[in-house]
Structures are given as structure tokens and as C-alpha cells.
């Protein structure tokens, strides 16, 4: 009699646990879509990676393109700018990073960076600031953030002002000599 009651109790407990477990799994699987729907949708993800044709950009020119809704600087640097960037000793930098680390080898003239000051997110002005290269064509390279006065050099590295970090280089790769894929 006692054994029968006990096994009955065990069976009942097992049933309750099984029911609770299945219910919990079902509820959890129902909750995930409700959370995941806030993630970027398929149309947004389709533009997460873009291809860009560099051929129209002459040496010394810069364009600002849109990638993932953000402005991105694409600059075809002059030799003087590259030289200026390469000769800076690393220990002078607030956020030490070589020019090579910020460009792709074989394409050192191309500088591709998010156009967002690492201080508070304003768009820096190009060919301005204390670290621009002065040539017969006027100021070349270098950026100055008008909001709070951050100065970036010709490799987009922070040199002076309140910003803590260099301008961010997004992930990108050269598909050919004139085409880059950003993202």
C-alpha cells in the first residue's frame, strides 16, 4: 500500500515536472522572436556591406560616402600626407598606431575612416587643424573637429584636443585596385 502510494506520488511529480518543462520551453521559444524582431531587419542587413568604386577620386581629393547610415571619409592622400603620417614617432601619439596599421599595404594612399569624432561624434572638417600638410595647393590632409577642437593628423590620428582615440577605421578590403568593400 505504502509503495503504491509512493510510486503514485513519483509519477505525479514526474508529470508535473514534465508539463512545467515543456511549458517553460514553449514560453521561452515564444519570447525569443519578440526580442529578436528589434534586431536590424533584412533590408538593413542587405546594406551592411557596400562596394565602392575609387577610380573617380583624384589624388588629394576626399569624398564622404554613407555606410550603415554613417558618413565615411574616403581620402586619396598625396605622397606628402603619407610621408607626414609615417614620420611621426609613435611615442608622440595619444593613441599610438602606425600609418601602416590604418591602411592596406599596396594601397597606402587610401585612407578610409568613419567621419565621426571620437570625442562626442561631430563630423570633423577636412584639410584643417594643426596637423595638416601645407603645400602650394593650400592645406592638405588632417582634420579638425569644430565642435570641441580636436585635431587629427593626415592618418586621422588624434593629436590634440579632447578626443581620446584615433578616427575609427571600419573593416574593409580591396576587391580590386579600384574597388573596396566596406563592411
Amino acid at each position, binding site marked *: 500500500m505504502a509503495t503504491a502510494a509512493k510510486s503514485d506520488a513519483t509519477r505525479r511529480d514526474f508529470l508535473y515536472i514534465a*508539463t512545467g518543462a515543456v*511549458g517553460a520551453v514553449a514560453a521561452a521559444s515564444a519570447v525569443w522572436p519578440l526580442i529578436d524582431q528589434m534586431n536590424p531587419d533584412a533590408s538593413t542587413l*542587405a546594406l551592411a556591406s557596400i562596394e565602392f568604386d575609387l577610380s573617380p577620386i583624384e589624388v588629394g581629393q576626399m569624398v564622404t560616402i554613407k555606410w550603415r547610415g554613417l558618413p565615411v571619409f574616403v581620402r586619396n592622400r598625396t605622397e606628402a600626407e603619407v610621408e607626414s603620417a609615417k614620420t611621426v614617432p609613435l611615442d608622440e601619439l595619444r593613441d599610438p598606431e602606425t600609418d601602416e596599421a590604418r591602411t592596406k599595404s599596396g594601397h597606402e594612399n587610401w585612407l578610409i575612416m568613419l567621419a565621426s569624432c571620437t570625442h562626442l561624434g561631430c563630423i570633423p572638417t577636412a584639410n584643417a587643424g594643426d596637423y595638416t600638410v601645407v603645400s602650394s595647393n593650400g592645406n592638405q590632409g588632417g582634420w579638425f573637429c569644430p565642435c570641441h577642437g580636436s585635431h587629427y593628423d593626415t592618418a586621422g590620428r588624434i593629436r590634440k584636443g579632447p578626443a581620446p582615440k584615433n578616427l575609427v577605421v571600419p573593416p574593409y578590403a580591396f576587391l580590386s585596385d579600384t574597388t573596396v568593400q566596406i563592411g
Partner: protein
Amino acid sequence: MIKAKTILMAIALAGLFSAPANASGTAGVEPKFSDWTFGGLFGTYDEHQLQRGFQVFREVCAACHSANLISFRNLSEEGGLNYSESQVKALAAEYTIADPASLDGERSGIPADRWPAPFATEQDARDANNGALPPDFSVLAKARTVQRPGLGWIMNYFIAYQEGGPDYVYNLMTNYAEAPHDVEIPAGQYYNAFFGGGIAMAPPLADGLVTYDDASVPMTTEQYAKDVSAFMMWMAEPHLIARKELGFKVLIILSAFAVLMYLTKRKLWSNVKH
């Protein structure tokens, strides 16, 4: 009495899901109901059929009809045409897309672009088509339906009949004919027996009009109509397969839960006389 109640309830249930009558009036011939691969619970799209349908759409329909909600990238989505991403990229690049942000205001297409419309404005579309506006194809397959004869509409709820749209398109495509003597067709219109009179669209398909890569598929109006109808269903419901697959999982877990809940409830109430 329980029995009578049960029967009445069954009637009530059937009645509650009562169908709207004769949604898209087709005064003409009885529709033919095709056996779609994507019909029923287990149906899936046939990617070869969708690819053929896409070819018909691209070479014939797209000259007048837009499909504004379709992006090139959709063509490589799973459960649909299953083109590779590089195929879609190459296809998109064949098209020129208007983009004010580009140098010349236009550029070649990328997978994220929408399918380009054949006419820039609605007025252009009307001007080119005798005043009639060719409807957009994106969800057209769900905006049309055919009624099943008799009490078929009740069955529809139990077999989940969702193929009224492709059935409609198929019948429309295959029922162009000479107008009977007693039917007068206004100028600029064409007789369609399924439509039940004149229609502004000229017969779009003809045997041999589109050359399929697969020579084993007949190149007939009937086959084109079938393929393009399937493709239009895919355009309207591109994630049909994923939805059904998830549905099975959900139904299985819900049924298991319902059975367990029943046992739990029975166990719990076993000591209560009720």
C-alpha cells in the same frame, strides 16, 4: 442532449468562420484548380519552376508590370529561387538604378536594390497602356482568388487553401479566346473567358515565346502560365516554406503541451468530485 449540443457547436464553429461570398467575381468559365507544389501543409516551392516563372516575368510581364516590393537579394533567399549570391549580384548589375546620391544620378544595381519599375510614374504607365494601369505584381497573387464550388470554402479552412491567387492567374492566362458572337468587346480590350468579358491586357503569353534552358519543359502558354503563377505566389509570400516549417514545430510542441496539461489537470482534479 450532449450530442445535439455538440452538433450545434460544430455548426456554430463552421458558421463562425463563414466566408465572404464570391470575392473576385468571375462570371466566365469554371476555373481549373492546379496541383501546386506549394499547396497543402507539406507543399514547398519548386525552385526550378520559380526560376522559369521568373524568366517569364522578366522577359514578358516586367515590360509593363512593376514589382516594387521585391529586391534582387530576395532571389537568393532560401526556400525560394535559391540563386547564388554571385548570380544575383551579376543580375542586379545588369540594371541601372536611379540614385540621386550617385555621380550621374544613376548607377548599376546591387542586390539590396528594389526591382526597377518599367515606368517612372503611374501616368507614364497609363499612357503606355491605353489608359489602363498594369497592377504591381508584389502581392498581386494574394489580392486575387477564386471560389471553390459548393461548400469548398468550408474545407478551405481545414486544408489551409492559400492558392486562390495562383489559380486565378493561371486561369486568366490560359483563357484568352475569340469573343463569342453575342459578346461585344470595347475597342482596345481583349476577350478572356475566365475574366468573363473584355480585359485591357493583350494576351501576354504564346507558345514558344520564352525559351527555357531546360529543353524537357514544354514551352507552351499553359506551362508559362503555371510557372509565372507560381513565381507570383512566391513574390507575394516569399517565406512560405520557413513559415510552414516553423508551424510544424509549433504545432508539435503545443500538442505535446496540451496532452501533458490534460494529464496534469486530470491528476489534480482526481480527488475532487466535480
